[in-house]
């Protein structure tokens, strides 16, 4: 069976498994939706009140029935109601998603715009001091957690320029595009920096592989200009692993950069998930986790398919 077909066939199986894990994980939490909503006051409920609330939340049924109802609801876009927001879960998630999407795209742009040229630069100067400097910066970038970098940048801005990034009231893109971009810039740089570091490393090592290939040597020996050889002959092939990496990274970013959104007080999906967990809003946790996992899976699938298209060896199932 070829690789693409196999990948497409297992997708629904994995998705089913993911839904079971999310469902069961939340059912393992001590206490139920009633105690989550009412806290200690749940102890004051009469048996009849408790039973009617249990029927309302659907938790009076066996797990298998609850799961069936939950899945049936999913197909209608019904993920339940968030206790903290008093709104449908899907509505809450979708209201937060544009911000996360925008932040992810900006971070990808920063990462690729810095990482690819830096990787090519280092590869073409393999072994020289400038290569070493790029590699050290990339290594540091990969080892710096986003929250450390975020705090350091805020510190530098506030100490050096007496300027604090605009935080607190979030300005949506549709209301004030310039204010919005200014607000998103620093978080995007923080997220993009670590990604740029990975892109640099991968671009560098795959460029070095490609530069040793026969077809590059042929291009050189027929007298193609050095710049053409690097950017037109070598780079497109060297970028295949970068495509994979970018797809995976985009999947991660769409899951919400929990910590960066938290530090910069951005109301995205990541912060929503974190709030849902700390508020014990389980319907929202379920919905948000499933939403993010689905995004992540779809992007992973697209990456694999893109990879198969770009590299025939994978498509024909020879290298796996």
């Amino acid at each position, binding site marked *: 069976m070829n690789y693409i077909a196999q990948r497409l066939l*297992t997708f629904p*199986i*994995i*998705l089913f*498994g*993911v839904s079971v*894990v*999310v469902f069961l*994980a*939340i059912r*393992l*939490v001590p206490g139920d939706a009633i105690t989550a909503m009412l806290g200690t006051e749940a102890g004051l409920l009469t048996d009849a009140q408790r039973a009617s609330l249990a029927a309302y939340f659907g938790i009076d049924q066996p797990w298998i029935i609850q799961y069936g109802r939950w899945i049936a609801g999913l197909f209608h876009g019904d993920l339940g109601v968030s206790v903290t927001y008093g709104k449908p879960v899907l509505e809450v998630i979708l209201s937060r998603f544009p911000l996360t999407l925008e932040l992810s795209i900006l971070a990808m742009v920063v990462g690729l715009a810095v990482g690819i040229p830096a990787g090519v630069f280092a590869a073409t100067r*393999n*072994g020289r001091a400038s*290569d*070493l400097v790029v590699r050290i910066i990339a*290594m*540091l970038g*990969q*080892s*710096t*957690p986003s*929250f*450390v970098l975020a*705090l*350091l940048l*805020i*510190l530098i801005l*506030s*100490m050096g320029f007496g300027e604090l990034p605009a935080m607190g009231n979030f300005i949506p893109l549709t209301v004030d595009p310039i204010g919005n971009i200014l607000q998103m810039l620093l978080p995007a740089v923080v997220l993009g920096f670590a990604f740029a570091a990975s892109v640099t490393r991968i671009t*560098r*090592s795959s460029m*070095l*592989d490609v530069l*040793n290939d026969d077809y590059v040597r042929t291009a050189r020996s027929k007298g193609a200009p050095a710049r053409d050889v690097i950017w037109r002959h070598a780079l497109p092939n060297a970028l295949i692993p970068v495509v994979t990496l970018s797809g995976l990274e985009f*999947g*991660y970013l769409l*899951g919400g950069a*929990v*910590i960066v959104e*938290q*530090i910069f007080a951005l109301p995205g999906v990541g912060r929503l*998930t*974190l709030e849902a*967990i*700390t508020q014990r809003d389980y319907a929202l*946790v379920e919905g948000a*986790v499933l939403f*993010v*996992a689905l995004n*992540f*899976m779809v992007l*992973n699938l697209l990456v694999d398919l893109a990879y198969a298209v770009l590299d025939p060896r994978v498509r024909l199932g020879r290298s796996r």
Partner: protein
Amino acid sequence: MRLLRAIASHPSGRIGGVIILVYLLLALASAVGLVPHDPIAQDRINRLHAPDATYWMGTDLFGRDVLSRLMVGIRQSFIVAFCSVAIASLAGTLIGLLSAWWGSWWDASLMRLMDILLAFPAILLALLVVAVFGPGTVTSIIAIAIVYTPIFARVARGPALSLKSREFVEAARTFGSSESYILTRHLLLNLVAPLTVQVTLALAWALLTEAALSFLGLGTQPPDPSLGLMLSDSKNLMETAPWLMIFPGLTVMFGILGFNLFGDALRDIVDPRSLTRQA
């Protein structure tokens, strides 16, 4: 011994090794009580004291010594990182190995199970585990272990699968070696190299995740010091007491850097193909 020499002659390995060693010594010193001050004792008169000869890295809002707290924090991070990676590597290797050995539907179902875990972004899976078990040190260990188990399973399964069909394994079977003997002697021993690389890189990631979870208030709980918590507490005091942020920040960063460098060096040594990419 030969491996140690190879690491020592590799520049990244040398730097990474020294960093890890220093951190281990600091963690050990704090474990036997060799810290400059009591990490929890509050010196109210010297609150937010800038770094000087008495308090090398200054004091925090409660007048607690930052250096001592940092040392205990490193120990805390290392305990979480080493325990979680130990669990993940044992469980993952066992799953990967048995999956490859038994084959057929065992292989299919075990690996699909691993795929399900891999379908979650790592930090999200960790958050989900915290949601179930409640915040704390043990939860951090479980969370990181669950995230990393499928990765080890994959790393172990691939090579085990190809080893399984090699002649020496066939030969061992013909000689009547028991299954467990073949699994441990022939398969596991040959997996040590790729697994070691993965362990080092997993440790870097575990350090990062432990700090991240504590930073979010979901890991180690106060008053126990942890690097993530110290960073999170420093947020509002950044301008008056930047040392509260700078020292824990750099400590987290260099810890991760140490394991990343060491892992890179190991990969080069274990997989000589990647050496050609080096200078």
